[in-house]
C-alpha cells in the first residue's frame, strides 16, 4: 500500500511517499508565504494513499486536504525509530524550533522539551548569523570547521546576537573564530535542552540543522556522546507521518490534490 507524510515546517516543507515498506519518493520545497500552494505542488502527481500532516502548517492543510494531523513530537518519534530502531533520544533542530524527545525502550514518548517561542539556536538563527558574516550556510559551516580557536558569542537572542557578531567583526576578530563561536553557543544551549529529558543512547539528530556537520561535532563534544544523523535528516517528521498514515486502517482517503494545483510557484526539488 501507499501512504504519504507531509511535514509543513516553518522554513521547509517535506513530503515522503511510503510504499510497501520503503520510502519511494521524497520532495522538499521552501515553505514560502503560501505554504498551501507549495503543498499542492509537492503532492502533484503523487500516487494515491492516505495522508498525515505535521508541522506548523498542519492545521492549515487539515482543512484543505482533509487529512489527519499529528504533533511533530509523535511524528519525529515514529520517524526516528524507523531509521534507527534503537533510538531512545531525538534531537530535532528545525527552522524555528528545537525539540528534545526521550523515548521508552519500546518507542513511546517519555518526555519532550522544546525551546521557548524565541527562535534562538534554530536553523533560522544560523541563517541570520551566516548572513551577518556575509557567508552562505555551507561556507559558514566550513569556516567554523577550519579553526580551533572560537570567539565566544554570548547573546542568544537573534537580534542581539546579530549586533554582537557585527561589533565583533568590527573589532577585527577573524570570521572563522566567530563562526565557530556561534556553533558552540548553539551546541551548549542545545545540550541543556537535551539534558532536561533523560539522554539515553542512541541519540538521533534530525531536522535541517543536522545537515550541518560542525553542529553535529560541537553537540557531540558538548554532550560527550555520539549522535546519529540519518542520511536525510530533514524528512524524519514526514516519514513518521507516512508511517502513521500507513498504519491507519481507515479506507484510503484520496482527495483532489491535482485539481487543486493552481499555480506552479515554489519549485519543488525531487530526489
Amino acid at each position, binding site marked *: 500500500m501507499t501512504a504519504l507524510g507531509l511535514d509543513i515546517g516553518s522554513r521547509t516543507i517535506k513530503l515522503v511517499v511510503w510504499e510497501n515498506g520503503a520510502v519511494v519518493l521524497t520532495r522538499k520545497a521552501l515553505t514560502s508565504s503560501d505554504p498551501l500552494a507549495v503543498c499542492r505542488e509537492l503532492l502533484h502527481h503523487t500516487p494515491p494513499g492516505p495522508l498525515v500532516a505535521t508541522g*506548523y502548517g498542519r*492545521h492549515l492543510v487539515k482543512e484543505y486536504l482533509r487529512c489527519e494531523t*499529528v*504533533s*511533530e*513530537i*509523535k511524528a519525529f518519534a515514529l520517524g526516528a525509530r524507523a531509521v534507527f530502531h534503537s533510538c531512545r533520544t531525538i534531537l530535532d533542530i528545525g527552522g524555528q*524550533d528545537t525539540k528534545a524527545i526521550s523515548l521508552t525502550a519500546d518507542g*513511546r*514518548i*517519555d518526555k*519532550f522539551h*522544546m525551546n*521557548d*517561542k524565541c527562535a534562538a539556536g534554530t536553523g533560522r538563527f544560523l541563517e541570520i548569523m551566516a548572513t551577518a558574516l556575509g557567508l552562505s550556510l555551507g561556507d559558514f559551516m566550513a569556516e567554523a570547521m577550519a579553526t580551533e580557536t572560537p570567539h565566544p558569542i554570548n547573546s542568544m537572542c537573534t537580534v542581539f546576537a546579530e549586533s554582537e557578531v557585527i561589533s565583533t567583526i568590527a573589532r577585527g576578530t577573524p570570521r572563522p573564530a566567530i563562526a565557530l563561536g556561534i556553533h558552540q553557543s548553539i551546541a551548549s544551549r542545545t545540550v541543556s535542552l537535551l539534558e532536561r529529558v533523560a539522554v539515553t543512547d542512541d541519540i538521533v539528530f534530525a531536522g535541517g540543522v543536522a545537515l550541518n556537520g560542525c553542529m553535529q561535532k560541537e553537540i557531540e563534544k558538548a554532550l560527550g556522546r555520539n549522535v546519529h544523523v540519518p542520511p536525510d535528516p530533514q524528512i524524519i517528521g514526514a516519514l513518521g507521518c507516512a508511517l502513521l498514515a500507513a498504519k491507519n486502517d481507515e479506507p484510503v482517503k484520496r482527495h483532489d490534490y491535482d485539481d487543486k494545483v493552481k499555480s506552479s510557484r515554489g519549485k519543488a526539488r525531487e530526489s
Partner: protein
Amino acid sequence: MKFNADNVKPLIEDEFVGEAAKRALQYIQGKRSAGMPVAGIYCGYAPMEVIRAAGAVPAILCAFANKTIAAAEAVLPANLCPLIKSSYGFIITDSCPFFGISDAVVAETTCDGKKKMFELISHYKPMFVMDLPQLPDEEEAQANWAAMITKLKGFLEKTFKTEATSERIEAEIKATNVKNALMNRVFDYAAKKPSLLKWSETYELAFLAQVATTEDLQPIFQEVFRTIKEREEKGVYYGTPSSPRVLVTGCPVGGDSTKVYKIIEEAGGVVVAMDSCTGMKPFMTAIEEDTGDPIAAVAVRYLQLPCSCMTPNLRRLTEMDKIIARFQPDAVIEVVLHACHSYNIEAYKIMNHAKEIHNLPYLKIETDYSDGDVEQIRTRVEALFDSL
C-alpha cells in the same frame, strides 16, 4: 470541545455570557450607585473580609489585556511580567473602568515588579500597600500580617469614613465560608468524570464571586445548582469521557491569557481544575470562625494562600495533592507569565512533584498576552496529549 448536547443552558444565564469583567462591572456600579465605596484590588492577598466590613465593594482591577502593554512599555521595561505591564498600561491610558470608579486601592508587596509598579501609580488614588510576609510559616509572620491588616482597616476606615468593627469582620468571615462552601460544591461538578462544566463557566462564576457578596450571590447559586442538576438528570457533560482532563496551575490566567485554556480545548482536552488566583484558589480554604480575634483569623487564612512569592511555599505541593485527588487530571499544565521569576523557578518543583509523586505528565507554558505564540503552544499541548 463542546457539550454532548445542543443548546445547553449556560451556568450563569444573563446578557454577560463570556464577559466576566462586564458582569462584575455592572455589579460594582450598582453597589456604587447605592452609595458604597469601591476598593480596587490587584491580588488574592487583599483581605476581602476587612474591605467588606469597612462597607466597601472590592473591584478586581484590569491586568489581563495585551492592548495596554505598548503604552506601559514607554515607562516600564519590556522584560517585565505582562500582568504588571498591562495593569500599569490600563492606569496611564485611563482605560480600566474598575480603577476609574475605585475610591481607594489595596496593594501588597508580593513580587518586586508589582511593588515598584505600585509606586508609579500611587498618586492616582489613595493607596495602601500591605507588607506581605514571605516566610508564612515563621512565628512572626502571622502577627506581622495581622498588624498590617489592622493598619489596612484603619486606612479604609479613614478613607471611607466608616468603622470596620470586629463584629462586622466576624460576620464577613462567616459569609466568606458560606460562599466558599457553595463554590466548592460547584467545583465538585467540574471534578466529575466526565466534567459537567466548561472551564469558562467556572471562570466566570469565580470572577463574579470574588467581588459579589454571599447574600447577592444566593439567587445566582440557586440558579447555578438548578442548571447543574438539570445537566446531571439529562446526562449532559462537557467534552467526551476520553478527553484528557487537565489541571492548569501557576500564574493567574485571565483575559488574553485564557488563550491557553482555549488551546487546550482545541487540542481535545478539558480543563477540569484551575489552580490560580483567577480560578479556584481564592475559594479553597475556610477561615476559622468565632476565635474572638477575627483579624488574626483572617491573617492566618490569607497567609495560607500558596503563591510562589512565598518561600518555601510547600503548601503549593500539599494543595496540589488535594486538587489531583479531587479532580483526577490526566496531565498538569503550568502557565508561567514571562518574567514571573517566582512561578518560573517554582515550576521545577511542581514538575518534579507532578511527575514523580503523581506520575502525571507535566508541561510548562511560558507566555504573555500576545497571540504570537499560539501555534507554538498548540504544538506543545498536542504533543503532550499525544504522549498520554
